[in-house]
């Protein structure tokens, strides 16, 4: 079912064309295949270095090997590490074949499966981008590549975009006030280069390309993993009919999205704006009519 049955504005579309880029090149994005991620954080370093993103707090978070914490103004790529304990009924319980098992090696004698998931998160560059919808200055704009970019020389730091993002990606920088996030390396795209994170990724966990290609690749990969017995492999954010109209950065996950700290069913926060405006319009019209009637009545 479509998320926006009553609105042509939110139909699946090519956002660049919709935004007025008449000769837009094919839409590009990231396919982040977390089944290939080795958690090396080269993407974080490459992003920070290329985009001159200032460093973080530099403290031990104790969140497995992650000391970045979350996506934010100073972290446009973020590798999450999930140490997952899966208690089984007993040693005969089938073990996920693709992942190591520690069954039976527990000193206490219990049978525990364990796996360590890693995933590099990033701005989704939504088809329906609420951050862009609410930006009053036009600082946030849709590029010809279909990506969503903040122009730091226009942003006035109003902060409307921050609660608008359903993923909590965009963020204000402390001491600066402006909003910052992944640009999908807009400057590199203009120079026909792939984004820094994808370039640095040693295992091709982060793949950059035309969205149609990436979706085909992702579908094949999921099928391959399912055939290999990894039933939980799923795609997240690739569906053009999801709550944000599909995202240009989508993921292959090995567990439910919430395990990775991703919202299971994200919805563009401005979805209801047209309806709200229609209702507000109707209310205003009713009020106007009432006022006219009142005046007319008064004259009488």
């Amino acid at each position, binding site marked *: 079912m479509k998320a926006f049955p009553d609105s042509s504005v939110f139909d699946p579309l090519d956002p660049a064309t919709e935004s007025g880029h008449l000769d837009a090149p094919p839409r590009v994005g990231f396919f982040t295949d977390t089944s*290939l991620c*080795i*958690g*090396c*954080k*080269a993407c*974080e*370093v490459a992003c*920070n*270095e290329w985009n001159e993103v200032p*460093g*973080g707090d*530099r*403290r*031990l978070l*104790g969140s*497995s*090997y992650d*000391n*970045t914490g979350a996506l934010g103004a100073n972290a446009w790529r973020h590798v999450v590490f999930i*140490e997952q*304990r899966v208690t089984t009924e007993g040693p005969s319980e089938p073990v996920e*074949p*693709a*992942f*190591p*098992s*520690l*069954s*039976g*090696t*527990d*000193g*206490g*004698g219990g049978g*525990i499966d*364990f*796996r*360590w*998931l*890693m995933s590099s998160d990033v701005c989704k560059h939504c088809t329906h981008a609420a951050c862009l919808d609410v930006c009053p200055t036009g600082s946030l704009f849709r590029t010809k590549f279909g990506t969503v970019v903040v122009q730091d020389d226009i942003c006035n730091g109003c902060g409307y975009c921050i609660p608008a993002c359903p993923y909590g990606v965009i963020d204000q920088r402390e001491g600066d006030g402006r909003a910052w996030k992944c640009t999908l390396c807009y400057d590199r795209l203009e120079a026909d280069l792939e984004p820094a994170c994808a370039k640095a990724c*040693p*295992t*091709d966990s982060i793949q950059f390309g035309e969205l149609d290609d990436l979706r085909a690749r992702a579908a094949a990969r999921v099928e391959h993993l399912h055939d290999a017995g990894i039933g939980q492999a799923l795609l997240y954010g690739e569906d053009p009919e999801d709550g944000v109209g599909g995202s240009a950065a989508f993921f292959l996950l090995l567990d439910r999205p919430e395990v990775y700290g991703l919202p299971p069913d994200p919805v563009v926060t401005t979805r209801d704006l047209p309806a709200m405006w229609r209702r507000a319009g109707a209310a205003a019209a009713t009020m106007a009519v009432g006022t006219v009637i009142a005046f007319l009545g008064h004259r009488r």
Partner: protein
Amino acid sequence: MAECHPVGFQWVMEAKARGARVIHVDPRFTRTSALADTYVPLRAGTDIVFLGAIVSYILENGLDFRDYVVAYTNASHLVSEDFVDTEDLDGLFSGFDPESCTYDPSSWRYAGTAARSRSSGPGGTDGADGAPHEEGSHGPPLGDGDPERDPTLRHPRCVYQVLKRHFARYTPELVEAVCGTPKDVFLEVCRAWTSSSGRDRTTALVYSVGWTQHSVGVQYIRAGSIIQLLLGNMGRPGGGVLALRGHASIQGSTDIPTLFDLLPGYLPMPDAKDHLDLTAYVDSIVGPRQKGFWAGADTYMVSLLKAYWGDAAQPENDFCFDHLPRVTGDHGTYQQVLDMIDGKISGYFLLGQNPAVGSAHGKAQRLGMANLDWVVVRDLFEIESATFWRDGPEIQTGEISASTCRTEVFFLPAASHVEKEGTFTQTQRLLQWREKAVEPEGDCRSELWFSFHLGRRVREKLARSTDDRDRPILDLTWDYPTEGVTAEPRADAVLAEINGFDLSTGAPLSSFLDMRADGTTSGGCWIYTGVYAGGVNQAARRRPGSEQDWVAAEWGWAWPLNRRILYNRASADPEGRPWSDRKAYVWWDQAAGEWTGHDVVDFERTKAPGYRPPPGSRGPLAIAGDDPFVMQADGKGWLFAPSGLVDGPLPAHYEPAESLVANPLYGQDANPARQRFPRSDNPHQPSGAQSGSGVFPYVFTTSRLTEHHTAGGMSRYVGRLADLQPELFIEISPGLASERGLSHLDWAHLVTARSAVEARVLVTDRLRPLRLGERVVHQLCIPYHWGTGGITTGDAANDLVGITLDPNVHIQESKVGTCDLRAGRRPSGQALLTYLEDYRRRAGIDPATGLPTAANEGIGT
């Protein structure tokens, strides 16, 4: 591998995507484990039990690649009647001298060959043993005579049967009881390894150099090699034993060595006692009936001397052989550091090395450096080895005082890898040329610049000297062309010199086979000859893989002679036919009368498979047409090492020098020939059943993180990387946390006889206690990247480790030890010394602890 070599790991992921099965054996669950198909935990320091049980599994189930084993290994050779195995001597091989703790290896020889004469006597227990360095790294020679053989492999003294008996007690049950690896997981590894080996399939064994950091490190690798030979995985595509190094060009730094006992190309460094002239030196490398290409050692050596001393090197003066320094014992890094403490060494050069953090027993390292006249540190940042005199941990304890430290420290900023040109040599022996991307800033200079101009200035100062002792410096060929405002020497000119020249024509040599012992050729490293063939820098070739075949022979250059797989004659059967179509690599073309295939064949090109050497022949002539291991003295892959090792011809399980448990296999606990330094400043902990061992109830191992580089000199000083792992931590299991009353992120400290190291704890399921029978063993991990310098600081984990070495190669046992774990921060200042003293007292430690005595190791009982 994912943890320490993320870029190389892309190929493992690529192989996995194509259906390869990845098995990861490690005491610690790392990022590699997370991506492996099977993670196999084991207790640190028990690898020989694990590997030996695989050997036993192969032999008991008849799963060896029999045709390969009979033809290409020494399985059929008979071992001398004098040989007695560890199984019969409770953990000792025959030939052990309990006084000196060294072996006389003559009883390990093949039947039918004479004992090798060893002119140097065994050394003492003071670490100055003279024997190991003389073995060098070349194919060790054999005594005169032809080994007796039994191709049926039934003779009780044939290597095959010796091996079978030796490992018979290494069973899956033993693995479970000693390594803590569940039997079913172990058998899964056995099945995977054996079923992926044979005519149609091969398996690669990849180890990281933590494997070498044990008192039995060399025997670990030997054990891996035995499996690979039994399964026919050597000299074939997709096989091999591959070492992942800690730095980009560590292979290169053993080829053209930074090691005290080697000259370039694995020629041994001459010894003061035995190598009185060039003939004596060459004779010690080349046995009287030496088969194979080591027989050309005289040509390699004379060409090297010509490269060093040019026209000064003439037949009349032994080609300046006497200009070479001589080895008088162990001059390895640990012996040197102790010598510094004892005031026997006055100066020290550190080029891109940070021993104050990276070497075992950090305190000894720093105290040694604080007792020098001078130390020169060349690095990217002002690392701890340059600042120990003012901010090392010993400043707090009062053991070093900045105002009285006598060492003058010269810090010279180094150019980084993008600011200089040269080669990297990786684990496949592939040399890849690296361009200079940018000029170094300020005073930063390359090592090449430093070495060349230092030499030039020293030569200028000595120019008028008539003292004979200055001749080696003054006679050197030291005339590299330079370029640019900094007068940077041309790295390609150095590479050309390493390649070597025909001195009569001035043309670059294209093969070491063209080297002569008469002084008409030069060459700085015989195995690298060919890298500048035709006057072209072959290492700089970058033809894309898509434009050539799968062997990609035109990407870089591999030594020797651009061979991508060593001993690749073994990829064909004895008749010269590929073992299978799928694994075809090189083969004999009968019609053309030569070897052909995908790679440069590692064999004489026109030597037919049926060639049999005439009686009494030596050198390459003595290698039969079906002897693939052309550098070995008998042309065979060695399952059993009749010479060349100082701690046994076969791997046997010994517990680490400091272990929680006594050796369950033998009365002998630890490697009896391990190199020890019993001194009060190198205290050793009681081990196994010895009294006091309970004071240190846990096993620890040091490790690396992706985010940092070794001793931290290239990462802790870089903000972007320091951000990623901003603090030292200790990884412990939930079980150990509750045993010690620790919660996630609490402060705790580890204690050994040497030091105490504090950090916060990460409580994680990635570390799992191991069950050894009734006993639960807790292992914990601590990264060794931190020190007092840089953007992120912390205690240096290597301070915990003492100095106990593998006797073959003098590498420290730093990957396993025992410790105590206590909640809270460690004492600091003087209180730390008192605290450690108290631990040593409670454990009953004195300098003799850890020394072999009848009481603690059963020797002589």
